[in-house]
């Protein structure tokens, strides 16, 4: 019988991966509530992820604040709206730029790290060794990491937002002679909880996606040591793509919610 429609192999692989990732996340929700809770490992992961990403996130946030203000200032000046700068910068950073840039940085820094670490543990049989010692490696390695990224990302985003706004203040202070107090008054004058809450909620999803994809790629790593590199690399690529999809959905949902 002739085949009417043949689905190309990359498309088949893509959908197979989506299915496997869904199963993996289902297993996470099944295991997360089961005892024993790996609290010490969870705290260790939180510390590692938060502490090791702090400087990178801070530098990036600071530069974004500087660049964003430097580039927007001339345009606002043309319209005589420089006084809107603090509000515009803060709302842009808190609603969108802070969360997405921090998440992308963490996808590169944390997601690839998780993919490489778990991938290496898989190919050197350390995960099997954990299993035969009577420890559930999924709970110990995967659940703790996903929980840690989910919790740490919003904290890192808050930190990056604050640093970015400070960077913006430095430009305004240098170029416009605006005082710290005035700048922050203007920032908070137009900033509302409706800006902060949806963007904070989406950072939890960003963190979850970073942990989930990194763990999925590393935990299912194949093809020996070459597979470790592939796992780390594909963790970043898939996570970045997923972050933009989540961001789009989050913006859409927020928009629908506020238009009601």
């Amino acid at each position, binding site marked *: 019988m002739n085949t009417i429609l043949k689905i190309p192999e990359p498309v088949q692989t893509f959908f197979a991966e989506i299915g496997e990732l869904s199963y993996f996340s289902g297993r996470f929700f099944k295991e997360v509530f089961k005892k024993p809770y790996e609290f010490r490992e969870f705290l260790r992961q939180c510390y590692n992820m938060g502490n090791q990403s702090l400087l990178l996130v801070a530098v990036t946030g600071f530069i974004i604040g500087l660049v964003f203000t430097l580039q927007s200032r001339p345009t606002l000046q043309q319209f005589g709206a420089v006084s809107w700068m603090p509000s515009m910068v803060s709302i842009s950073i808190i609603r969108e730029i802070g969360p997405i840039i921090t998440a992308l940085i963490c996808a590169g820094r944390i997601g690839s790290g998780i993919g490489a670490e778990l991938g290496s543990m898989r190919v050197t049989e350390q995960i099997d060794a954990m299993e035969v*010692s*009577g420890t559930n490696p999924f709970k110990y390695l995967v659940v703790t990491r996903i929980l840690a990224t989910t919790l740490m990302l919003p904290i890192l985003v808050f930190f990056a937002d604050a640093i970015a706004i400070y960077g913006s203040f430095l430009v305004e202070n240098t170029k416009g002679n605006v005082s710290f107090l005035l700048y922050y008054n203007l920032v908070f004058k137009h900033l509302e909880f409706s800006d902060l809450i949806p963007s904070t909620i989406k950072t939890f999803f960003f963190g979850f996606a970073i942990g989930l994809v990194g763990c999925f790629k590393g935990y299912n790593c194949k093809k020996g040591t070459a597979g470790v590199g592939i796992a780390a690399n594909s963790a970043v690529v898939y996570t970045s793509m997923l972050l933009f999809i989540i961001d789009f959905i989050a913006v859409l949902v927020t928009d629908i919610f506020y238009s009601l």
Partner: protein
Amino acid sequence: MKSYGDNNVLNGFNMELYEGENLVIMGKSGSGKSVMIKCLIGLEEVDSGSIEIMGKDIVKLERDEMDEIRTEIGFLFQGSALYDSMSVRENLEFPLRRHPKKFGIIEDTTPLVTEALQSVGLEDAINLMPSELSGGMKRRIALARTLILQPKIILYDEPTTGLDPITSKEIIMLMQSVQKKYKTSSLIITHDVDCARVIANRMILLIDGINYIEGTFQELSSSKDAKVQAFFK
């Protein structure tokens, strides 16, 4: 029975391991030895058949029950599989702290860790990281990690592969001394004829997914069968 697609790796394989014996299983690369040993510990699922360990069919066990059985079975991996983010002490403490049912809650693990390291002659390596150890030392530490749970059965997956002849001999001697000290039953998968000669009470040759022939080292090494002779040339 265990197959991957059309490839029947194990096809009617059958064996028994008696208390206190050293059973050696030999076979060509790709003959299914590692798959068989992984089925025994539950790392691979069999397609059909049963695996009875200490009176329990592990094929039907839930995860928690399997984990309890696993405290009675040690597994020495071919590549040692030490946790490379943990020191030697932490590697040994890891299984110990996770089985309060067997050992109770242990406040100070040092005596147990030291005893296990003494058994393999490496008590000075307690604070080293796996990256600081040689291949032979890694294998010994992995054996110490296996011993710390005081298992009744130890499964060795190619224990001397990748080691120089002198270190191989040391590992074989160590396996013998461990067996005497802890009164364990051992299942050893190996290509190493010297290892089999020294350690085997009984041997099985695994060919085409079945136990082709069974007997003592002397019986098998003097066999006229060409397939059997190929292993001893």
